[in-house]
């Protein structure tokens, strides 16, 4: 535990003592902020138009749901932006150690590979949580000026957290494969996109195969969280995705010893 914490602390410090953390959090907030603004203004305009129409036809104004029409939309956009930003967090975790040779220090110290993988993974998740925490400002503003339901917001965040952690787990894996950070980030990104696209393909193939494909899709499982539905099958899916990523990282590090690269 102490050694896990040593790795974890060093990684977190290294994120926050370099510009990486601030730039990634800043850019993520910039882009989600722009989309938040667009989504909320278009929702407000839509509401006003609906109100005017209702007055014209002398009907009661329609009840428009901010959860469905704005927040769910925002969560979906955030889940997409995360697939750009999280590979940038994870790309250096092992690639940099391989490039500078510090991996030799880690692998000749009395720490297990599992301790180092979990330490690094948790550090990246911590930075990701900081990123998510800042976006709560958007929600707080909606709660001040509107009356959204809290439930779907919380499940949405839980979904984002699980989805992001899955990205990170595989980001760790891809960074164990190469000493080049760009390659690590690019392959993580393409991998994530692939598991997104599987969901779209499922609509075009036979129903049986389509069902199988869509249950592999990273984003299909996120839909329910965004809608406010909490289903264990989705939680299990993400947890097994994370475990798989970390397990592959472990195998990759062990085998790189044998290959000597």
């Amino acid at each position, binding site marked *: 535990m102490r050694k896990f914490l040593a790795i974890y602390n*060093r990684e977190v410090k290294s994120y926050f003592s370099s510009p990486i953390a601030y730039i990634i959090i800043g850019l993520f907030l910039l882009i989600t902020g722009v989309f938040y603004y667009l989504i909320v203004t278009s929702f407000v305009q839509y509401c006003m138009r609906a109100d005017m129409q209702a007055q014209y036809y002398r009907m009661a104004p329609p009840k428009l749901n901010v959860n469905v029409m704005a927040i769910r939309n925002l969560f979906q956009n955030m889940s997409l932006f995360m697939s750009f930003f999280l590979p940038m967090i994870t790309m250096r975790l092992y690639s940099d150690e391989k490039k*500078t040779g*510090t991996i*030799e*220090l*880690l692998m*000749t*110290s009395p720490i297990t590979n599992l301790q180092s993988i979990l330490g690094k993974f948790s550090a990246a998740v911590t930075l990701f949580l900081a990123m998510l925490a800042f976006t709560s400002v958007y929600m707080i503003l909606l709660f001040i000026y509107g009356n959204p339901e809290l439930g779907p917001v919380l499940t949405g965040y839980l979904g984002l957290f699980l989805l992001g952690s899955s990205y990170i787990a595989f980001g760790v894996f891809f960074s164990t494969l190469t000493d080049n950070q760009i390659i690590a980030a690019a392959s993580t990104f393409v991998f994530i996109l692939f598991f997104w696209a599987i969901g779209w393909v499922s609509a075009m193939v036979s129903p049986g195969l389509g069902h199988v494909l869509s249950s592999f899709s990273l984003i299909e499982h996120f839909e329910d969280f965004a809608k406010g539905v909490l289903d264990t099958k989705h939680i299990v899916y993400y947890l097994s995705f994370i475990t798989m990523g970390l397990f592959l990282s472990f195998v990759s590090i062990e085998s790189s010893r044998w290959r000597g690269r």
Partner: protein
Amino acid sequence: MIEVQNVTRYFGRVMAVNDVSFEVAKGEILGFLGPNAAGKTTTMRVLTTYLPATKGTAKVAGFDVHDQSMEVRKRIGYLPENPPLYQEMRVRDYLDFVAKIKQVEPKNRKKAVDEALGKTGTTNVGNRVIKTLSKGYKQRVGLAQALVHNPDVLILDEPTVGLDPKQIIEVRELIKSLAGNHTIILSTHILPEVSMTCERVVIIDKGKVVAEDSPDNLTKKLSGSMRFKVVVDAPRDQVEEKLRSLPGVKKVTPANAPGNKKLSTLLVEGQGKEEIRPVLVKSIIENGWNLYELTPEGMSLEDVFLHLTTKEEEPVQ
């Protein structure tokens, strides 16, 4: 303390280390000598548990490097060829981190870091960011990292690379002072380093051990004949011809120091252990030349090394 038995390591089809065996006693400094790509680093990586051996076994402090790697790791300090430094960290934080993962007790950690800084002369840069240090200081921080948990065994891969002459002497003194308490393996391709610091040398070439002995013995064993440097103020060709005709002289090689046209320098090699100096001097004086210098040239470790690691045929005289 360290036992290496028939260690062989392949990288794919390339054999990096071929059936290497040697032992190091407790408190000894062993020099690991060889040209680049001879298999020094690979052997050291096997010993530090970084790489598994394809065949053979190695034990450090009685623990097998493969089956009991965690026990081995606790007992070794390793300085790889490139010091494993986190560039963005401060020296003190870095050593504290290393002490943590090397299982130094929390209450002893500050003392351990201070000691490592003191031993390697890096106390004054303790608060600097590693990135900003000079190559020499980085190397020393690398050494401090290997020392911080006071390990039984130190494995140093070319520890004096990149240092200036003064620092090199300091590091060698430091390494010598560590012997006794620590068992040290030191790899290098700088020969004087070995004769100055090590009690025993293992010479490795193309993955195989080609010689193993003390530096003095190695030089003695391999220098069969006596060699002298002769400096005379006469045309080189004449001197060379004359000296070659003398009895007991096996070989004369001109070795003129550049820039001095008046004096000729020659290397004269005698046959066997026969003393040829009186003959040389007499002949030079009789020819009316002046003798400026006559110095014995023992076969240096450098020659031994070249002799063992190059397969060139002796030129026929």
